[in-house]
C-alpha cells in the first residue's frame, strides 16, 4: 500500500457515522435491550472488606413471589468459577471469603428489579471478620495475612514475559527493569534528588454503568454486554463454563463510555451463572455506586531518585512504584509493567533501576484506566523534573530540552527508538503558554509544563472483513467497540478512502463475536493504528479484486485501472462497482469479500512499542491564595498523531483526556477508611463539569505521517490524561512557591501548604 498524499475522506472532519442515532436517542445501549423471557438481576454485596463467609441462607429470598433464582457459591461447583485475564484469582461469586466491600456474595433473578431488590434483604449471610489490609503498607507488613493463597494460575491475556507473583506475599506482580549501572551513575552525579509522590484512587465515571444480559440454552451462551473487550470476555466465559469459543456469543451494543473500566471481563461471568441457574435470560444493570465498587484506577506511591550533573545532564535513575491493585489482580500486573516503563520518561538516561509492584489490598479491584500506570508515574516524574530544575537553577523548559530524546534516539535497549520530535513539540507548547513572558507574572499566577510520553500498550492483533454488496454499499466487519471515542467513523473513513467510495456507503455494525472477526481489544490507543491497518488491508484486498474484475470486463491491464467515486476506470471506459458485480456474478446479487489481518510481523512491526504516544501539556493557573483554589486560565495539550484521520475527533479525544486528567488533579479521589469506601457516589465523589473547563483550551495536533498505522497514523486519546497533574502542580509551584506531592490539589491542601510556607 503506497502512502497517499491526497485524500478525499481521510483527514477530513467527517461527521460521526452514529451521530444522528445518538443525538436523537435512537442508539441502543445494553440497558435498552429486552430479550424475550428476560428476568432482572440484583446482587447482594459484601459489607465487609475482608471476612470469611460462614453461611448463606437463601430460603426466605427464594420464597418471595417473583423470585426465580438465587445464585450463591453452592451453584458454581460444577464449573471453574475463577476468572482473570492476568491471574485467575477472582471467583465470579464469593466462595469461602470476601475481599472487598461490594464483592458479590449472592445474586437474585426475579420477574422485575424491585422484587429482585427486595429479595436481597432476605438473603442471610453470616460473616466472620478478618484483619483488613486497607493499604499496601498493611499488605506489605511482614507477617501480613495472605489475601490469595489459592490463585488458579495464569490467565490467557497477561502478555507479560513472566508473571512475577511473589508467592506467599501480597504482591501480585513485581516488574523490574534496569540498564547500565546506577551505582556508578550516582557516583558520577553532582547532585542527587529524591522525592515521594502520592496518586489517589480514581473512578472512570462512565455515563453508562456496567450492564449485561445473559442467556444460556442449547446453543450455548449468549451475552449482550457494555464491554470494551468482547473477545476477551468470550475467551474467559469459554474457560469458566467449559464451552468452545464457537458456543459463546458476545454482542456489544453501543457503550456509554469505557475509559478502561469496561476493559477485560467484569460482571459477565456472574450474569451468565445467574442466567444458567434461572434457566431464563437475565439482565444485570448496575447503578453508578455499584460500578464505583467494580473497578477503579490504581492509587500509587512513587519514590523517585535521580542523579544529575551540575549542568543539568541526567545520569541515573532509581524508582519504586507501589500500586494498590485492590482485592483482585484484574489488569494490575500490566499496569505495574507500564508504571515501570513510563517512569523512565522520554529522557536520555542510561542508568536506571526501576521496580513497580502491584499489591493486593482489601479494596475495590483496580484495573485498566486511560493510560495504565501513566498518570501515576508521570505525575511523579514530571514534578520531580521541575523540582530538580529549580534546585539546579535551570529553567525547567531548558532542563527538559537538554535531556529530551531526539527522533531516532534509543529510549532503552530492545525498544523502538523515539519516533516523535519532542523538542519541537515542547517548544510549541511553551510558545502557546507564553513561557518567556510568564517570568514577569505576579505571585499567585504561573505556568507549568509537562512532557507525557508513554510506550504504547497496543497488542498488534486485529482482523477485519469488508464486504461489497450488490448495490455498491459496503459492510465493514470489525470488532472495535464504539465506546464514544468515534472509532466507527474513523474505520469507515479508512475503508471508504481505500475503496474510493463515499463515506455514506460504508456501514459498520456492532460486534457479534459469532460473525465479527477477532480483535484483541478496544483500548491502549490501538484501534486506529492496529484495527485501522487490518481494515485498510481488507479494503485493499477488495480493491485488488475490483481491479482484477474491472480489467477483465473493460479488457484492460490491471495497471491501467483506476478506482474513483465508486467506478472502475480504464482510459475512457468506465463501469460502476454495482454493474461490475452484476456482470461478474451474472445476476443482480453476489458480493465481494476483502479480508485484512494485522499481526506482529504481518502488517505491523513486532518491535515493542508499536509507537510512542505523546501527550505534552502546559497549564496557566491562577491561585486564590486565601482559599487555596486553583483556577485554570489555559490548558495547552499537544499530541503527535502521525496523521489525524479525523481532526475534530482527535481534538475531542485530547481535550477529553486532559479534562479527565484535570479531574484527578483537582477533584477526584475515592476515599477509603479501613477498607470502607466513604464516597462511592457522585455527590461526594466529584468529577469535573463544564464549569471547570479551562478558560482557554488549546490542542495542537502534530502530523508527520510517520506512524505505523494507516496513512502514517499513530495512536492517541490516552496520553493526554497524564500531563495536567504535573503541569498544574508545576504551575502552582511557580505561582506560589509551594510544592504539593499528593493529588488531588484540593483547595485545602493548597491552603495548608501556603500557610505552612508562610509560617516558616
Amino acid at each position, binding site marked *: 500500500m503506497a502512502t497517499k498524499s491526497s485524500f478525499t475522506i481521510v483527514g477530513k472532519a467527517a461527521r460521526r457515522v452514529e451521530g444522528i442515532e445518538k443525538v436523537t436517542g435512537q442508539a441502543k445501549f445494553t440497558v435498552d435491550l429486552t430479550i424475550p423471557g428476560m428476568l432482572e438481576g440484583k446482587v447482594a454485596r459484601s459489607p465487609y472488606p475482608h471476612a470469611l463467609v460462614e453461611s448463606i441462607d437463601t430460603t426466605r429470598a427464594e420464597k418471595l413471589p417473583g423470585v426465580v433464582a438465587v445464585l450463591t457459591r453452592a451453584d458454581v461447583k460444577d464449573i471453574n468459577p475463577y476468572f482473570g485475564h492476568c491471574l485467575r484469582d477472582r471467583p465470579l461469586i464469593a466462595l469461602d471469603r470476601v475481599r472487598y466491600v461490594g464483592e458479590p456474595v449472592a445474586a437474585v433473578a426475579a420477574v422485575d428489579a*424491585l422484587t429482585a431488590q427486595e429479595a436481597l434483604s432476605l438473603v442471610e449471610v453470616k460473616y466472620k471478620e478478618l484483619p483488613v489490609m486497607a493499604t499496601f503498607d498493611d499488605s506489605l507488613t511482614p507477617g501480613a495475612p495472605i489475601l490469595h493463597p489459592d490463585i488458579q494460575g495464569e490467565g490467557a491475556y497477561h502478555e507479560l514475559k513472566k508473571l512475577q507473583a511473589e508467592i506467599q506475599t501480597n504482591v501480585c506482580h513485581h516488574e523490574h527493569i534496569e540498564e547500565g549501572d546506577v551505582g556508578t551513575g550516582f557516583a558520577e552525579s553532582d547532585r542527587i534528588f529524591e522525592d515521594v509522590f502520592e496518586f489517589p484512587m480514581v473512578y472512570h465515571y462512565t455515563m453508562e454503568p456496567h450492564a449485561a444480559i445473559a442467556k444460556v440454552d442449547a446453543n450455548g451462551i449468549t451475552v449482550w454486554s457494555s464491554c470494551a473487550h468482547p473477545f476477551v470476555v468470550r475467551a474467559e466465559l469459554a474457560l469458566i463454563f467449559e464451552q468452545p469459543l464457537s458456543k459463546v456469543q458476545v454482542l456489544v451494543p453501543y457503550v456509554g463510555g469505557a475509559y478502561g473500566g469496561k476493559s477485560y471481563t467484569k460482571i459477565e461471568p456472574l450474569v451468565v451463572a445467574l442466567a444458567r441457574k434461572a434457566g431464563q435470560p437475565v439482565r444485570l444493570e448496575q447503578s453508578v455506586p455499584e460500578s464505583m465498587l467494580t473497578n477503579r484506577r490504581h492509587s500509587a506511591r512513587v519514590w523517585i531518585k535521580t542523579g544529575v550533573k551540575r549542568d543539568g545532564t541526567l545520569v541515573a535513575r532509581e524508582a519504586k512504584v507501589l500500586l494498590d491493585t485492590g482485592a483482585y489482580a484484574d489488569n494490575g500486573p500490566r499496569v505495574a509493567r507500564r508504571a515501570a516503563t513510563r517512569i523512565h520518561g522520554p529522557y536520555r538516561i542510561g542508568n536506571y533501576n526501576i521496580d513497580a509492584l502491584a499489591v493486593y489490598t482489601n479494596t475495590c479491584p483496580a484495573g485498566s484506566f486511560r493510560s495504565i500506570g501513566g498518570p501515576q508515574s508521570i505525575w511523579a516524574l514530571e514534578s520531580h523534573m521541575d523540582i530538580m530544575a529549580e534546585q539546579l537553577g535551570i529553567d525547567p523548559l531548558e532542563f527538559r530540552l537538554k535531556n529530551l530524546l531526539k527522533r531516532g534516539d534509543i529510549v532503552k535497549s530492545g525498544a523502538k527508538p523515539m519516533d516523535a520530535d519532542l523538542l519541537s513539540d515542547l517548544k510549541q507548547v511553551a510558545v502557546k503558554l507564553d513561557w518567556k513572558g510568564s517570568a514577569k507574572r505576579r505571585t499567585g499566577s504561573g505556568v507549568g509544563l509537562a512532557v507525557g510520553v508513554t510506550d504504547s500498550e497496543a497488542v498488534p492483533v486485529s482482523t477485519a472483513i469488508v464486504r461489497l454488496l450488490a448495490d455498491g454499499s459496503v459492510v465493514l466487519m470489525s470488532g472495535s467497540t464504539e465506546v464514544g471515542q468515534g472509532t466507527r467513523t474513523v474505520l469507515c473513513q479508512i475503508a471508504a478512502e481505500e475503496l474510493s467510495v463515499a463515506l455514506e456507503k460504508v456501514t459498520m455494525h456492532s460486534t457479534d463475536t459469532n460473525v465479527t472477526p477477532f480483535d484483541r481489544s478496544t483500548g491502549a490507543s490501538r484501534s486506529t493504528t492496529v484495527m485501522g491497518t487490518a481494515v485498510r488491508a481488507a479494503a485493499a484486498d477488495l480493491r485488488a479484486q475490483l481491479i482484477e474484475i474491472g480489467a477483465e470486463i473493460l479488457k484492460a491491464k490491471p495497471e491501467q485501472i483506476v478506482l474513483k467515486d465508486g467506478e472502475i476506470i480504464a482510459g475512457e471506459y468506465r463501469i460502476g462497482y454495482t454493474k461490475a458485480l452484476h456482470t461478474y456474478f451474472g445476476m443482480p446479487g453476489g458480493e465481494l469479500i476483502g479480508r485484512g489481518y494485522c499481526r506482529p510481523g504481518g502488517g505491523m512491526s513486532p518491535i515493542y512499542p508499536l509507537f510512542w504516544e505523546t501527550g505534552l501539556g502546559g497549564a496557566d493557573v491562577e491561585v486564590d491564595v*486565601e482559599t487555596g483554589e486553583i483556577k485554570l486560565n489555559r490548558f495547552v495539550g499537544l499530541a503527535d498523531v502521525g496523521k489525524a484521520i479525523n481532526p475534530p475527533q482527535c481534538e475531542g479525544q485530547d481535550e477529553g483526556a486532559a479534562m479527565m486528567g484535570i479531574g484527578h488533579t483537582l477533584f477526584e479521589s475515592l476515599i477509603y477508611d479501613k477498607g470502607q469506601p466513604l464516597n462511592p457516589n457522585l455527590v461526594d465523589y466529584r468529577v469535573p463539569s463544564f464549569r471547570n473547563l479551562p478558560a482557554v483550551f488549546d490542542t495542537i495536533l502534530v502530523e508527520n505521517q510517520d506512524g505505523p498505522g494507516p496513512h502514517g497514523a499513530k495512536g492517541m486519546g490516552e496520553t493526554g490524561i497524564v500531563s495536567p497533574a504535573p503541569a498544574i502542580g508545576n504551575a502552582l509551584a511557580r505561582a506560589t512557591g509551594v510544592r504539593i506531592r499528593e493529588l488531588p490539589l484540593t483547595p485545602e491542601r493548597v491552603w495548608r501548604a501556603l500557610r505552612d510556607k508562610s509560617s516558616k
Partner: protein
Amino acid sequence: MLRRFRLEEPESVKEACELLARHGESARIYAGGTELLLAMKEGLIQYERLINVKKITGLDQVKLENGTIRIGALTPHRKLENDPVLKQKLPAFVRMEHHVANVRVREVGTLGGNLCFAEPHADPGTLLMVLGAKLVAERASSRREIPAERFFVDAYETCLEADELLTDIHVPALPERAGAAYLKFGYLERPSVGVGLFIAWDQDAAIAEARIAVGCAGPKPKRVEEAEGLLKGKSARDAASALAQAGEIAGRAADAIGDLHGSAEYKEHIVGVLLKRAFQQISEQRSSKSSR
C-alpha cells in the same frame, strides 16, 4: 432503587395537611423530589405514601405586597433566579438561586423542599436568615409564622410539625440604604461553607444594622450575633478592620464539622474569607450605586 409507594395528589393545602395528619410518619410531602427521591432510591429512607403537593395551585408564585416579597414554597429555583420582582428587589437572592445545584435540579427543585429537607449543605436558609425572612407553615386549621432563625433544628431536622406544610416564605424587601450578599465555597458537588451578610447604614454612613449567618459548615445555618456586634455602629473603614475578628468569631460559631468537604479548621478559615469578601461586595455595590 425506588421501592413501591402510594401517591396522593391533594388539590388544596387543607387536604394535604389532613393527609399528613392521618398518615403521620409513614407519609411524606413530595415537591420536586430532587432530595426525597434520591434518598429513597439509595434506600436511606422509605415511606409508604408520598403526598405530591404540586397539584395545589398558587404555591409557586412570587408577589410583592406592602414591602414584603411573598414566595410560594413550591416555586422552583429556576423560576426564582429569573423572577423580575426578585431581580429588582433582592438581587443577592437571585444570585444565590442562580448558583444552587445545577440547572436540572433548579428546574424541578423547590425553595420549600430545600428548606424543609434541611440538608446542611444548602444555600437559601443562610441568606434568608440575614434578610429577616419568615416562613409560613400551615395546618388543616391553623397557620404560623416562623422566623428563619428558628426554623432549623439540626441536620435534616426543622421545627415543622408532622402535619405542617410550608406554604410561603416572606422576605422584607431590601431597605433603601442596605445591601446583602451571599457567598459560598466548595469543591464537591454541594457547598462546604456559606456566608450571608446584610448591612444597613444610617444617614451618617455608619452601620445601623449588621446580620451575619453561616451555613453548610456545621449541622445547620445560624446567625452570629456576637460577630454582628463588632460591625454595628461602625463606619465602613472601622468595620473593615474589625472584619478579621468578626470572621474568626463567625468561623467558631459555625460549629464546623470535619468531613469529606474539608477539616473544621479549614471551614472556619473559609468563613472568615467569605465574610470579608461579602462585605467588600456590599461596599462595592453601595459605592457604585451612590456614584450613579
